[in-house]
């Protein structure tokens, strides 16, 4: 019962923080330098690992699917299958999980540490709104970084798939055949579907991480607890949102 109450309270607090953050967007101008810093920081943390993950996903997907398809003589369909799977599902979800693990956890650790060591209280005594000062730049940077990361992972995932498809002798699909099939199957709305998902994932990750960090109380041990809580909550919200958004995108005809 206490766990259910804690979950409901957590969701309520996150929604409240989301509302306060949206209301503070009008002060974006004064947070520009902090936003740019966050943008670079998030990019630095995620881009190299994202490339590795995307390359690996594309390659493994092509290998497993390509060999099965070649048993039925349908290996020329590999470009469309890899292309669609990567851009509609794998890239947005893996990018979001990467973002929650590398960026979300660091946001929570930083804000929880600031709460525990009274830095947030110090801002309040100076009439500096912690939402505008701390949450808004991280929220907006996450909102920009994640969709860009998804497009980047789409491209690298396709590259990984195409390289394996052309180099593996059991599949043996040339690069031009791979991309020809991919371009016939994958439409703009498929790519847009992945980007739309990533926008919602970015909102969930940034708000969950900031909310849990800001609410941390107690001693240094609470910082570690908050980080664990934030990563778990972000992962769960990504997976739940993924299902809900996929259903919605099918319903409105984008997927």
């Amino acid at each position, binding site marked *: 019962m206490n766990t259910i109450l804690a979950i409901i309270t957590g969701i309520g607090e996150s929604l409240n923080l989301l509302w306060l953050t949206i209301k503070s967007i009008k002060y974006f101008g*004064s947070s520009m330098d902090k936003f740019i810093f966050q943008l670079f920081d998030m990019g630095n943390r995620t881009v190299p690992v994202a490339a590795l993950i995307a390359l690996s996903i594309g390659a493994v997907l092509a290998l497993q699917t390509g060999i099965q398809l070649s048993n039925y003589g349908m290996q020329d369909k590999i470009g469309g299958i890899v292309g669609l799977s990567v851009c509609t599902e794998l890239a947005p979800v893996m990018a979001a999980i990467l973002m929650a693990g590398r960026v979300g956890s660091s946001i929570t650790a*930083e804000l929880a*540490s*600031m709460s525990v*060591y*009274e*830095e947030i*209280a*110090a*801002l*309040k*005594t*100076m*009439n*500096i709104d912690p939402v505008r*000062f701390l949450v808004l730049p991280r929220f907006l940077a996450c909102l920009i970084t994640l969709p860009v990361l998804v497009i980047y992972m789409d491209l690298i995932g396709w590259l990984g798939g195409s390289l394996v498809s052309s180099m593996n002798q059991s599949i043996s699909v040339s690069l031009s055949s791979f991309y020809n099939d991919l371009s016939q199957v994958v439409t703009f709305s498929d790519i847009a579907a992945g980007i739309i998902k990533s926008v919602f994932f970015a909102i969930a990750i940034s708000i969950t991480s900031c909310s849990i960090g800001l609410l941390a109380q107690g001693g240094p041990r609470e910082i570690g607890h908050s980080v664990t809580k934030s990563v778990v909550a972000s992962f769960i919200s990504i997976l739940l949102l993924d299902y809900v958004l996929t259903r919605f995108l099918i319903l409105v005809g984008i997927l």
Partner: protein
Amino acid sequence: MSDVSIKLKEVSKSFDGKLIIDTISCDFIKNKVHAILGKSGTGKSVLLKMLIGLFKPDSGKILINGKEAEHYKSVGDFKMSYIFQSSALLNSLTVLDNVTIFLDEHNVDEKESRVSKALKILNELGIKDSANKMPSELSGGMRKRVAIARSLIIEPDILLYDEPTSDLDPINTKTISQIINKLKARGDITQIVVTHDIGFAYSISDTISILDNGQILITGDPDLIKSSKNPILDSI
């Protein structure tokens, strides 16, 4: 015009059903130094945090310059600043950025003017050379002085100190008491200092209040407190 800066009227505060501040009424006179003395856990910091608005009283009223505190923001209608026990410097910012943060975020003055103002205060407090250092590179005493500089840049009417000498050696304690006495000599700041260091309280205060179990037991000038036979003084 009243000479009372802050007036507490039957203020109470509880946490998790435990009464921390028990119907306290008292006055803090303008431009004087008031020490609130008491053992750890007697509600001194809670009282101070209620004055700045970080906690709201469960009952009673806090009047600042004759108006109810809830109508104010700490640095809105008048200027009140708080020096935290932990200094609470922003660890991701340099000393200079910590000191100018209030002016930067509220767009007060031009950038050059903010920096020169901050450097002047840092110079007065003897830490100008540390302006470009990060808080993690500073000693406890220097961190405390940066926190004071961050408060002074607001040009406060009321300055609240939460255990300003905790974790400090005697030399740094003396430096902090010199800073407080220098501000007292200016005669335009009400300073309220929460401490459990009785010697320090005697060295800076115009009046001292002894707080125990959420209640004020005695208030008076340092001589009155020294001559008091209250057993609580022996335990501080």
